[in-house]
């Protein structure tokens, strides 16, 4: 009896010691890369984003300092219900701490609510909707790479100023298209332009001819493509076929990724103006990263802006974790720390995270090269101009985020 009591006392003490040791320096982190793994956004995010996350883990150096960091990935199939179910399961069962990537604004907004409810960290790189840092902002969310406000105020503004004062929109019929059309409309109208019409097409449409005919007969100077990925490539290709650009109308690819240009081919895509915040061939640092990245990609593709954003966002997250010294499971606390440190990484340069979760960095206006100007397989862009971060993204005075009212 006596020996039993002593044994259980000892056991209890040992357990308590182990438990307290774990909570004092809990250095385990689980990253969930949630993306479209097989649909129309798979090439711009997808497996490449998971690779970017793994590279961020390796480059952070934290594992050498005793941290245990795992990356898992999931396929949301562009369906908000599937995305939020995976996220919920990740927090409840897999004990995920941070969700990254999540292209498709509809899914992104759904996941935003789950992460907030579970007090995780959400570093969104893939989605465009500016609602993530405005009406639906959350203390757990950092919106890293780009957003619809930025696209509208860079590409949109540049085109209106160049004389494109009448617009017709081809809009993807979900949260992203609506946000992009709304933000671009505001810019066009503010600069003295007019919207003469718009048509909403279902997500993942292969035939755009009916919509393009409507755009053509509207006689608008600019046809704004408020869509992305496969939808954008198909609209641009078919617009060329219907002689829209030759007829004097101009296409505004409000959102275009490196992989889209590859899919369209330079012959058709040449001369298009658009905005990105990252291009692999910007400087020595971006080239060095891209080389390492493409060597590990199955199709040897360099990183897109979304994949680069996953890498940089996570690097910054790890900086915050290191500063906190451990315990990565309180999302609000980690995000607060992320906001308090200025951002500075090899891919996006110096910047900051605003109190509403918006990351501020420079944006670049690009033009697609002519086939004769392209010297290498992924040599597609010419830099036309640089927009400083404070001009490209929503000024805090205009943000409708509730976090700012405290």
């Amino acid at each position, binding site marked *: 009896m006596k020996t039993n009591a002593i044994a259980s006392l000892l056991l209890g003490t040992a357990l308590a010691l182990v438990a307290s040791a774990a909570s004092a320096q809990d250095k385990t982190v689980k990253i969930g890369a949630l993306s479209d793994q*097989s*649909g*129309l956004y*798979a*090439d*711009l995010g*997808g497996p490449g984003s998971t690779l970017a996350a793994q590279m961020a883990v390796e480059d952070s150096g934290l594992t050498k300092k005793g941290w245990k960091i795992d990356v898992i990935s999931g396929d949301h199939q562009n369906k908000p219900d599937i995305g939020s179910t995976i996220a919920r399961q990740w927090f409840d069962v897999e004990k995920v701490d941070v969700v990254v990537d999540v292209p498709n604004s509809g899914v992104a907004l759904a996941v935003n609510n789950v992460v907030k409810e579970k007090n995780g960290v959400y570093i969104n790189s893939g989605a465009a909707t500016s609602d993530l840092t405005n009406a639906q902002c959350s203390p757990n969310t950092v919106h890293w790479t780009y957003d619809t406000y930025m696209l509208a105020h860079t590409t949109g503004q540049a085109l209106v100023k160049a004389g494109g004062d009448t617009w017709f929109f081809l809009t993807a*019929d979900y949260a992203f298209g609506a946000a992009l059309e709304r933000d671009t409309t505001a810019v066009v109208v503010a600069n003295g332009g007019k919207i003469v019409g718009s*048509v*909403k*097409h*279902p997500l*993942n*449409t*292969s*035939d755009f*001819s*009916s*919509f393009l*005919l*409507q755009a*053509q*007969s509207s006689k608008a100077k600019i046809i704004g493509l408020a869509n992305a*990925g*496969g939808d954008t*490539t*198909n609209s641009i*290709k*078919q617009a060329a*076929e*219907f*002689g829209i650009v030759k*007829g004097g109308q101009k296409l505004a690819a409000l959102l275009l990724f490196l*992989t*889209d240009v*590859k*899919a*369209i*081919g330079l*012959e*058709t895509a040449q001369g298009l103006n658009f905005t990105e915040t990252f291009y692999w061939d910007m400087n020595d640092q971006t080239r060095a990263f891209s080389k390492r990245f493409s060597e590990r990609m*199955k*199709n040897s*593709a360099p990183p897109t802006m979304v994949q680069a954003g996953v890498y940089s966002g996570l690097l910054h997250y790890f900086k915050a974790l290191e500063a906190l010294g451990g315990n990565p499971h309180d999302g609000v606390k980690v995000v607060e720390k992320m906001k308090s440190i200025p951002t500075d990484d090899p891919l996006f340069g110096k910047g900051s995270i605003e109190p509403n979760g918006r990351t501020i960095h420079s944006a670049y206006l690009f033009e697609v090269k002519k086939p004769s100007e392209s010297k290498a397989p992924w040599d597609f862009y010419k830099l036309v101009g640089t927009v400083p971060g404070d001009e490209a993204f929503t000024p805090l005075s205009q943000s409708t985020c509730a976090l700012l009212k405290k």
Partner: protein
Amino acid sequence: MQALYAQLLVGLINGSFYALLSLGLAVIFGMLNIINFAHGALYMMGAFCAYFLLNVAGIGYWPALIIAPIVVGIFGMILERTMLQRLAGLDHLYGLLLTFGIALIVQGVFQNYFGSSGLPYAIPDELKGGMNLGFMFLPVYRGWVVVFSLVVCLATWFLIEKTRLGAYLRAATENPTLVRAFGINVPRMITLTYGLGVGLAALAGVLSAPINQVRPLMGADLIIVVFAVVVIGGMGSIMGSIITGFALGVIEGLTKYFYPEASNTVVFVLMVLVLLVKPAGLTGRAA
């Protein structure tokens, strides 16, 4: 009004893809009793075949129109000989499940190697440009697609319904034992028929390559609509699927004009309506 004419024409263009694909499905179902869910994947293989012919072997669009259907058709015949043949006489569902599995595997393999955003395939020089019809700008290539697929559809219909070969074929599906007694190699005929249906899908793929991206999922996106076309037209009815294919293209085009949000669902609404009134489809005979 002008815009309406334009939409009608555009609808006809899409309809020609529906017609070509559903024709192949109808031939396969009518003659082999297989619900060929791999049809979309085979259509995609046709497009990829054209892409490889151009970029690897330097063979252009015109030869590809013949070579790609033959290559993919042979692939189809191998599938038939090695797998589908074993399902003869079993319930439709077995064929459906097998071909669905084949489709998933083929698409998965292509997606693994080529990603999802697709590869560019240029319109052949002879068919570049367009003409102003007054009410719309018609790309020459799209006009060509309509004419060419109409010719192919009618030729296939003629082959099956009006020639001696077609008569043997139809007889072989009705009573294989009797036809075999006349000294006709029925299994070989069945294999060739499957190859023909598959070849039609691959032909549609080559036609589609310059308009749509050459993408691994291009068939998966289309196949459900094509099945709806076949069901509305009456399973296995050759003429029914041709006419329904073109008609549905036009109806879909008009929906895109009047209420674009419904353009993805209008085909299925129609399918429900038709099946409520005529359960065997528009031209199908009740079983």
